[in-house]
């Protein structure tokens, strides 16, 4: 079993660095809606607040393990080494985008880095991730699949079907249910029967007789331990686990939905904008996983204030450069649209 105590200084710094890089990427994306209105089209969803959960989970990963999240997908490839500039160019709809401008924010894909692609339809990719685990099992590659999805998605039938099949077939997969308290504009207390009964969502694991654990997703090291155990279990042929990682989405669900050419921006978080619950939002802000981990690392002497600032500055430069790259990249030429329909 993995213990957080075993994580060396470098690894702890790596975790912090990835968390900061995700945050900076998302902040840059959010600013784009003000700086370059209209540049990002459709619907864009950010992962701020999820950093500890994402990085803590992926810190347990072997190099060839698959990572398959939902449409809220920016954070993961950043950790996998996908160049943010290509991600940013994709969001700007440019030729040098990760998907050449065909996919946009909801559909990032970097199969070469074991990130096969995402879906904009709720829970659809849970089945795809389960299929990647089938490949790993059939080919006996030793790979594990990290499947991430939202609390809302755990109300879609495809989720239950997939986990049952994974359990029956003992597939090497870890299901991380990212409970960020909201599905779009709806608070989870309005639509999840476990939550309404005061139970954790990890109770759903009982429907498949697999381990179900709830973890504080704002603490990367706790996530590391809990996911690590599930990964070991999966890799050793014992099948899937369900982990409910609890954290709070720090931005609104997505940019406002408008009909072009009306401008679109990120509105206030739903806690305030919809429910008028400032206190809830402020509490979450006060518990920002990045600030907390930073303090902890400094307190424990892993990082100095100056080193932390350097990491943050580097991330800011990296994401600035990504935006410059995106802006410099040409738009695809129209006729390219007929490419890639068939393999």
């Amino acid at each position, binding site marked *: 079993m993995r213990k957080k105590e075993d994580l060396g200084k470098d690894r702890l710094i790596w975790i912090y660095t990835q968390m900061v890089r995700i945050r900076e990427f998302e902040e840059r994306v959010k600013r784009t809606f003000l700086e370059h209105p209209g540049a990002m089209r*459709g619907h864009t969803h950010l992962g701020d607040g999820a950093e500890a959960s994402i990085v803590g989970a992926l810190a347990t990963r072997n190099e060839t393990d698959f990572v398959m999240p939902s449409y809220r997908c920016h954070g993961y490839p950043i950790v996998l080494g996908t160049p943010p500039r290509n991600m940013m160019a994709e969001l700007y709809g440019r030729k040098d985008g990760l998907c050449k401008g065909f996919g946009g924010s909801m559909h990032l894909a970097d199969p070469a880095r074991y990130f096969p692609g995402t879906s*904009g339809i709720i829970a659809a990719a849970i089945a795809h991730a389960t299929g990647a685990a089938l490949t790993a099992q059939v080919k006996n590659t030793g790979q594990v699949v990290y499947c991430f999805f939202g609390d809302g998605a755990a109300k879609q039938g495809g989720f239950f079907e997939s986990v049952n099949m994974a359990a029956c077939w003992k597939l090497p997969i870890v299901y991380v249910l990212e409970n960020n308290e909201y599905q779009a504009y709806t608070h989870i207390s309005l639509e999840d029967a476990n939550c309404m009964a005061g139970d954790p969502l990890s109770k759903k694991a009982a429907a498949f007789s697999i381990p179900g654990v709830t973890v504080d997703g704002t603490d990367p090291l706790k996530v590391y331990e809990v996911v690590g155990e599930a990964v070991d279990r999966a890799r050793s042929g014992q099948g899937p686990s369900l982990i409910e990682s609890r954290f709070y989405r720090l931005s609104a669900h997505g940019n406002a939905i408008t009909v072009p050419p009306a401008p679109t921006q990120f509105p206030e978080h739903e806690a305030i904008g919809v429910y008028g619950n400032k206190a809830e939002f402020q509490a979450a802000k006060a518990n920002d996983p990045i600030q907390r981990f930073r303090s902890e690392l400094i307190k424990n002497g892993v990082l100095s204030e100056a080193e932390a600032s350097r990491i943050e500055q580097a991330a800011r430069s990296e994401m600035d450069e990504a935006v410059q790259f995106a802006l410099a990249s040409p738009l695809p030429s*129209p006729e390219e649209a*007929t490419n890639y329909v068939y393999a």
Partner: protein
Amino acid sequence: MPREMMYGEAMATAIMEEMKRDPNVIFYGQNMAMTERDPMLKAFGRNRVRIAPISETAEIGIAIGAAMTGLRPIVELWMSEFMLVAMDQVINEAPRLRYMSGGQVKVPIVLKAGYGFAAGWAGQHSNCIYHTMMGIPGLKVVLPSTPADAKGLMAAAIRDDNPVVYLHPYMLMIDSGEVPEGEFVVPIGIADVKRQGTDITIVATGWMVKKSLAAAEQLAAEGISAEVVDPRSLAPLDVETIVNSVKKTGRLVLVDQAPRHSSAAAIIAAEVAEHGFEHLRAPIKMVTALDTSIPYSEPLENYVLPNEEKIVQAAKSVLMRQVVAA
């Protein structure tokens, strides 16, 4: 007295009015009526206005069961593609239960969904899926293109004793128009001639009506008189009004936001090829989306979708063709 309102408001008005009129009408869906400030919720309470989890199969299936037992549910689905996870309920349950029971039950539900949000929503949120719902006996499909039709067809859909899929083009959501106040019902299954013309018939639905009317203006500037027909309902389809227009003009262009073989255009073309053949003086021409998914980036998306220019070109090419009597 008509009043200027936006398409979205027109739909909401019809729902509000019909819920006032009939206590059996209920309304629910995801991400609606979240708080007590919601006007529907204020007017009708949590019993009749509800919030649902992301569970389209259950949402629609529950509506069916509620309808079988006496309610008239409206389900807010937001984007029509989300119905695909529940397509069995839409095309293999709702429209068939009455028939299989030998006429004993009825299933008065309205499935409300936007479609074709051509604004960078990319491959899975921008599609038209009405083709999956056409030719399903028992199921009605309406697709209003103006605020007035949006209101009148919503009222008709709610009053209809059959399952009705009500599709509204996202791109028209904030378009304004005159809408009659109070009781106003547009009967399902009657096409509307949105513009009179004599040289060529353009049949279009939803957002494409707007584009076709714009194209008709361009054509008019060049002395070509185009008639624009909006079926308004795809099931049942008012073939007669379309054939009558073709009888007059002898030429037909069909405009559709979907790719060719998933278009309503193709179905209409087939009907005209059977029932209006003698009146055609040139081949039918379809202006549809190209055979690709909808790409994210704007120039790609524009390239794939029909637009005024393509419609004008198609109309002209049809007008240039002379029929060669074989």
